[in-house]
């Protein structure tokens, strides 16, 4: 009986973005392909894939990749250099063949030797990249190449097909022949009868082949009697590239095959959730030492919520090595410390990763008698949880849910400087697994309300007769912006933080005006508003012989509203979190000038999503302009895009309003 090791992790690392290659034969180009100078299906494209073929044959331990590319512009020549990353201990890159076909039909074969270069090497793995470049490449030519990845007999691998690429694909053919016991029509056979079996990272025997896919409409994976899975796609558009897109994993076309010890998603997640929950409970085991620590941190008379807050403050105060420095294996050894295996270890060492600290909080809350549960969520910045993709590795970070007074309170103890009962936007509305009093299952973390994330910029600006200004601005931040700057302060001293803040001010300060942060308040008090006091000076206004013109909105003079110039949208808009931005600027006017015109009071609603409000108040010697942009939405679907764009266009227009000052008429005598 042979025990094959499943290369799940290996394949995940090596093959993302590195499609496997083919047994396909080079083919003669058609006259149409040779003469092609542009592609009606991909207008303006620099190159297009005419063909892609990926064949993965697990029983014989190889994967092949074949591509035929038409180069249409100079930029398209970049595809002439091919890089194949691979895990050196498991794979070999062989059978590299390539040729360039000029538009007159001349064939120039690859004769140079591919270069085997290093990407990274550490004590546990070495990743190399095979590099070759095609000869005699010119606009109009066809690039054709193939190569093979082979792996050891005692290994097994399943492919990942990256269907959508940066360039348009005319035709692609994919085929996978799985490990014998998992071939279509032979699945569910008695594994023992095959004399071969696979085990996963936990040592469990794998009994099923599963696949996850996001495919173009009308495309489907087929099986045949020969034991193959296949997929044919045509006219695949290039990967979209738009600002404010959700993580790429949520929209690109692709297929992942993987061997698992489950037959259905439900079965898989039930099994994985139980395993995860058991591991959590083992790590967060309430020990005598933890009980003692908790007793020292809380008083028996404390309410449950007060206990929760005190413990939260205690774990937040620990050294979170994700924001300082993680001790290496050798350092721990030299310090005679060990990697945390239990929450108690983290408490003893007063140091741990975000995950360690979240688990410690879970354990301490339980030690305090609170009902506390773990929730493992996807990092929203990296991906979106998909139940149909049976891989628990898509979950990144741990939250803790406290059940107090019949309510769930979600906290994010691993996110240093995150206030109690607030979570980082990366963990809000994020799918994952959670424990509860009854069971373990899938769940979604609560949405962050936009009112929790506010920035208020209050300016007090003196204007001279030539448009010069001096003044200060108080920037008060709560929620995600405050969290971002406080976390930056953990990794930099205040001098450097001021430099970084000044740098961020450059994007909002009007041209001709400089702003420098003078000091921060409450930088290390996460439950308070973080306030930056900024001094400003420069030339803001434009003077004419009779008038002085000032931008109506001090911080919007650069006109950087998003979406204004993007007419159409392919993918959803993901703005990470909702927020409310309020500006109130007082201009103290120079003597002898009065307000001839000012921004009008305006309300621009996008019902149910956002609102923009402007108010102005002028009095002798000064004018106060207030502007609020409240954005309650985080995500907008493509079908909502025109409404979203219309809203921002109206804002952009309103933001262009100016203050016109004119010389006051001289008082007339009797």
């Amino acid at each position, binding site marked *: 009986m042979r025990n094959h090791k499943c290369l799940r992790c290996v394949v995940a690392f090596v093959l993302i973005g590195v499609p496997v290659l083919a047994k396909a034969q080079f083919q003669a180009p058609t006259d149409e392909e040779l003469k092609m100078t542009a592609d009606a299906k991909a*207008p*303006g*494209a*620099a190159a297009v894939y005419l063909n892609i073929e990926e064949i993965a044959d697990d029983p014989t331990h190889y994967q092949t990749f074949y591509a035929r590319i038409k180069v249409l*512009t*100079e*930029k398209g*020549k*970049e595809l*002439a*250099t091919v890089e194949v990353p691979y895990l050196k201990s498991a794979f070999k890159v062989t059978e590299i063949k390539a040729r360039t076909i000029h538009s007159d039909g001349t064939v120039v074969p690859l004769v*140079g030797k591919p*270069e085997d*270069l*290093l*990407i*990274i*090497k*550490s*004590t546990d793995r070495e990743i190399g*990249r095979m*590099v070759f*470049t095609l*000869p*005699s*490449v*010119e606009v109009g030519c066809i690039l054709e190449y193939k190569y093979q990845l082979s792996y050891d007999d005692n290994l097994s691998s399943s492919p990942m097909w990256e269907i959508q690429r940066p360039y348009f694909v005319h035709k692609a053919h994919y085929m996978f022949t799985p490990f014998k016991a998992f071939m279509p029509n032979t699945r569910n056979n008695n594994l023992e009868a095959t004399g071969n079996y696979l085990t996963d990272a936990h040592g469990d025997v794998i009994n099923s082949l599963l696949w996850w896919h996001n495919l173009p409409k009308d495309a489907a994976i087929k099986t045949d009697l020969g034991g193959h899975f296949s997929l044919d796609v045509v006219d695949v558009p290039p990967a979209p590239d738009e600002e404010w897109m959700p993580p790429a994993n949520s929209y690109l076309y692709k297929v992942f095959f993987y061997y698992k010890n489950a037959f259905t998603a439900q079965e898989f997640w039930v099994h994985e959730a139980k395993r995860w929950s058991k591991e959590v409970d083992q790590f967060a085991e309430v020990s005598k030492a933890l009980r003692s620590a908790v007793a020292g941190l809380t008083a028996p008379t404390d309410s449950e919520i007060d206990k929760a807050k005190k413990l939260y403050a205690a774990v937040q105060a620990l050294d979170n090595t994700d924001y*300082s*420095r993680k001790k*290496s*294996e*050798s*350092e721990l*050894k*030299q310090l005679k410390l060990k990697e945390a295996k239990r929450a108690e270890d983290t408490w003893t060492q007063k140091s741990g990763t975000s995950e360690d600290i979240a688990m410690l909080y879970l354990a301490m809350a339980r030690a305090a008698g609170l009902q506390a549960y773990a929730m493992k969520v996807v990092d929203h910045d990296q991906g979106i949880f998909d139940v149909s993709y049976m891989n628990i590795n898509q979950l990144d970070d741990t939250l803790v849910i406290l059940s107090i007074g019949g309510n769930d309170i979600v906290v994010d103890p691993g996110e240093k400087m995150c206030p109690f009962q607030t979570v980082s936007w990366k963990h809000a509305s994020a799918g994952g697994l959670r424990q509860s009093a009854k069971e373990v299952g899938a769940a979604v973390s609560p949405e962050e309300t936009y009112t929790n994330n506010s920035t208020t910029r209050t300016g007090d600006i003196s204007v001279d007769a030539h448009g010069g200004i001096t003044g200060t601005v108080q920037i008060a931040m709560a929620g995600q912006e405050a969290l971002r700057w406080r976390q930056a302060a953990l*990794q*930099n*001293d205040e001098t*450097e933080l001021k*430099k970084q803040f000044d740098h961020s001010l*450059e994007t909002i300060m009007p041209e*001709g005006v*400089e702003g420098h942060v003078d000091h921060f308040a409450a930088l290390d008090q996460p439950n308070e508003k973080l306030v930056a006091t900024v001094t400003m000076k420069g030339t803001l206004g*434009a003077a*004419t*012989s*009779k*008038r002085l*013109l000032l931008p109506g909105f001090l911080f919007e003079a650069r*006109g950087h509203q998003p979406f*204004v*110039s993007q007419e159409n949208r392919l993918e959803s808009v993901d703005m990470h979190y909702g927020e409310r931005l309020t500006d109130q600027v007082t201009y103290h006017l120079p003597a002898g000038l009065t307000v*001839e*015109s000012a921004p009008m009071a305006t309300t621009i609603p996008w019902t149910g999503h956002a609102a923009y409000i402007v108010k102005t108040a002028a009095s002798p010697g000064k004018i106060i302009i207030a502007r609020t942009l409240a954005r309650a939405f985080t995500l907008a679907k493509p079908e909502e895009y025109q409404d979203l764009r219309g809203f921002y266009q109206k804002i*952009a*227009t309103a933001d*262009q*309003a*100016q203050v*016109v000052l004119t010389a006051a008429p001289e008082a007339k005598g009797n």
Partner: protein
Amino acid sequence: MATRLSGFPVLAVAAACCMALCGSIPATARDKAQPAPQWALDAAKTPTPATVGDASAVILFDEYLVTVDEQNHAVERQHFAVRILKPQGRKESHCIAESDKDQKLNYFRSWTIAPDGKQFQAMETDFKDAGSYEDRDMQSSDRFRIVNPPGSDPGSVVVCEMEVHLRPYINEEIWQIQYSIPVVDEVLELVLPAGGRFAESWSRITPVKPIEIGPNHLRWEVKDMAALDLENLHATPPEEALAARMSVQWGESAIKGVDNQWRAIGQWGEKLQEHRPDPTPEITAKAMELTAGAPDLYTKLSQITSYIQKNIRYFIVMKGIGGLQSHFSADIFRNRYGDCKDKTTLLISMLQATGVHAYYLHVDSERGTIDPTAPSLIGNHMITAIELPEGNNDQRLVARVKATNGKTLLIFDPTDEVTPVGLIRGQLQGAYGNIFNGADSQVLQMPVLPPDVAGMIRKGTFTLSAEGALTGDIAEGFMGDEAMQERSFIKDNDAKDIHQKLESSLGSDLPGLTFKGYEFHQAEDLDKPLNLDLHFSAANYAHVAGSLLLLRPRVYGSHARSVPDVMEGKPRAYAIELGHPGRWRDSFDIALPEGYKVDETPDPVNVDVGFASYRSLVSAKDNQLHYEREYVVRDVEIPASKAADFRKLENAIFADEKGTAVLKKQ
């Protein structure tokens, strides 16, 4: 760790090349902690000087010992100690050892000494090897061994010691003395074989005399070197052009006298490329085919340079001496790819086939890096110097210099695929290079081109509505560097990206933009201006303010530069980079809406500060508002002493660009 130069640095510049030496090889693995050596303990006792200011870390000790043998092969040992002062200073503690197949790493060890004296030794798991990677088309077999030092917290001292066999074909050590963090003690020792000789050259620092601490054993030491902190400065020359360094050569290259040293380096370089450009019959045939019927030298040169620019793709995997030595022209011609050396080799070869002499010109892609007073192999790019026949006065061949042998040389960069023969891009203008030409090898300054060969003419015709919408067209004509930049933009982007970027550029000046389209003209003809037509409307261009309509006559485009430190009046120690000479002209006509009359226009501007001038004028006639301006830059950089003039110029440009015309409803 503040890395130091060892051989030639690899720079990632689009049009740059590859003169790099590097390599690979892992360091010694360790599984049992050893105590830090005495030199490290001594270095760790160095107090932090009061002068470090806001530095995030300070190098306490940085010593290189280069031992040269009878064959002029050298081994270099480095001792390095850095104290981390702030959390962000941790990044300065990651020592790096560079190696490749010709540069073997003998050992690499590191310790951290905590403020309480506790020691941590980096073990094998604390090291990683990474391959060098610039981009897809500029690859290398170089490896970098990097330590992630244990215990590296503020207050601790990280020490590293390493030893490498230097590349056997290089007889030069470039000793970098100044970094972005301060240095307390910087040392170079050179041990020569009996009878061995050396030559030194210093750049950006007053030379220091060596102490002979033993037979043929010299020691140079520089104490308390201030940081070269450019982080918050704008428009400065590159760090490589400002940092203090010394170069020491041994063996045959060690010749006294600046001119002699440059000559020796040139001769060495020429020998390295010997026979590489020899034309094959195929190359000769192609060159003859390209130049058949060419009426003049310019046409002949243009045919050949265009061929190389269009047909020889940039690609290189640098390995060992391949970082310095070109492939043979036959291989380059057959494969139709290569790096800067290769492109120069093929150009020399094809020119040779047609009876034109040309030479390798070793330069750096960053102006100022090569210091004419400090002969060295430093430099990362190879271009071509083409010998012009006596009496040639073709006005199209602008980028010419006179060599000391009396020959006139035309400078041309075949790696730059978008600058025509006759011109060179701004980065090269005013910079120095070393021509490889036997006994006539020398350092040459490349010319600063006159303003009229670069710049842009922009004309716009618009109609303004009473609601403030502006509709119209802009025609832009780019020359010289501007044309080069636009052609690079076209080359590096597909149609969708080009549309988006043009839209974004217009949108930043024109609120409420609807971008209707664009056309490029003459994009392929490098020797002609590149023209671009833009069509758009901007719904919110002018702003209604009661009975007024406010608009900016400068519709599109800006010449204002972002140099905050200079504009804020902070003391400036370094030159201010201007980019390149050129002449830019704008002319806009705006048809005004019925019922409105011009009430006010911005005042005219006319400033000339010698190195640049700017003038603008707004006029109103009938129902038209006319705006015109001319901006001329006459140099590539100015000394810091001209900061006040720079401010005067920029303030004038800034005020003009913000200028508003007021229309009043009648």
